[in-house]
């Protein structure tokens, strides 16, 4: 069971209150986790990564286990604590600043 935390706006779109828990088949990677997330919550397609290019949107980053994974390859394995459900895969929106 993979745990995913979403920014508040995406939780509202997906109509979930807490972190999302999903089963991911095969290797646990950014791509497989996001594929599973978008399959369960189709309304999130296009909000985290571009519909066509599948590139991460510019104001969105990925973190887990205290590491910035935003620039890791989409098919690189995520840390073991994410794969085992011990730690969440965090999808984070940039701070608005001001």
């Amino acid at each position, binding site marked *: 069971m993979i745990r995913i935390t979403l920014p508040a*706006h995406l939780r509202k779109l997906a109509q979930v209150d807490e972190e999302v828990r999903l089963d991911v088949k095969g290797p646990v990677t950014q791509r497989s986790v996001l594929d599973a997330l978008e399959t369960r919550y189709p309304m999130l397609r296009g*909000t985290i990564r571009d519909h066509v290019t599948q590139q991460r949107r510019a104001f969105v980053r990925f973190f887990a286990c205290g590491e910035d994974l935003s620039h890791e390859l989409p098919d690189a394995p995520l840390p073991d604590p994410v794969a085992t459900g011990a730690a969440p895969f965090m999808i984070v929106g940039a701070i608005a600043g001001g």
Partner: protein
Amino acid sequence: MSGVRVSVGTRKGAFVLSSDAKRERWEVSGPHFAGWEIYHMKGSPVDPNRLYASQSSSWFGQIIQRSDDGGKTWHQPGTPPGEPTTAPDGTPKGESNKFVYDTSPETGKPLTTHQWYDGTAHPWEFKRVWHLESSLTDPDTVYAGVEDAALFRSTDGAQSWQELAGLRGHGSGDKWAPGAGGMCLHTILLDPSNRERMFVAISSAGAFRSDDSGKTWRPINRGLHSLYIPDPTAEIGHCVHRIAMHRSRPGVLFMQKHWDVMRSDDGGESWQEVSGNLPTDFGFVIDVHAHEPNTIYVVPIKSDSEHFPPDGKLRVYRSRTGGNEWEALTKGLPQSDCYVNVLRDAMAVDSLDQCGVYFGTTGGQVYASADAGDSWAPIVRDLPPVVSVEVQVLP
């Protein structure tokens, strides 16, 4: 008694303002989609409970929302949660926020670039939906004007979108360039007397017309004169801010250009300036009285670098002669120290016997006039900056 619903899009959410036909006491609901930019909301003329909303953010992109109960509840009309996004045969199901430019060979001219600010070729990149326009006859058909400029259509209630690629591909698309606010298709007019005719306007490319339901297009900018482009009378490159028509006289178009208020009496074949005695002919909005096709409204703005009313006085100008002769409408509007802007989609009229006129400001006020502009009062004063205003008269 009939009522009025004013749908207001702002930088931080949507608001719905409701009144009976007297338009004296208003109920305010919202913010809906709090925290998101709502570029536009539009109701169907054949089903007043069907509303569409463009919800976007720099973080998470474009969302399309739909209401089937007059704005009480909303949903994204794509594939519901938990359902597979492809049908058993592998074809994709509805993805209401998916706007993909058509590059298929079938369109004939699969454009891949337009001009960037420096004149170099730049790929088309979808950013957001600026304007939604409901079909005049079918509540499930709706058009979307997007940035980077293109026109999309949905025929399934906004569950999925297809580009009308003949617009970008008609021949001048590779020369279109953005203005400072982006390259957006912001105006869509459907001709009520000719279902195959439609008009769009793009900043900063100009106005375009289709006479075959959006399949093919051509520029209609003859008579426009724009000193900010190398050839002031070029076929394209004009920063049209808004065009408007009266449904009883769809061959007559009115335009607020970057500078100049213009009029066409031949469906856009040619344009004449009708700025007349306006204090400045820069502005964004233009609209037509619901019952008097020669009565038009603009809100003059000082200049393209000073986006506020001249002299700090917020004045709507009305022409009852289809342009050239204008009168200032000031009763109830601030006449000192007012430095707000009125953006291109932020004016609308209702169709009650005594025509109502509405506009919203970047200062968060929405003003209403129940007497065709003679007097004004704010419905609300302190919303986030207003991007769009639309009105429906309810049975």
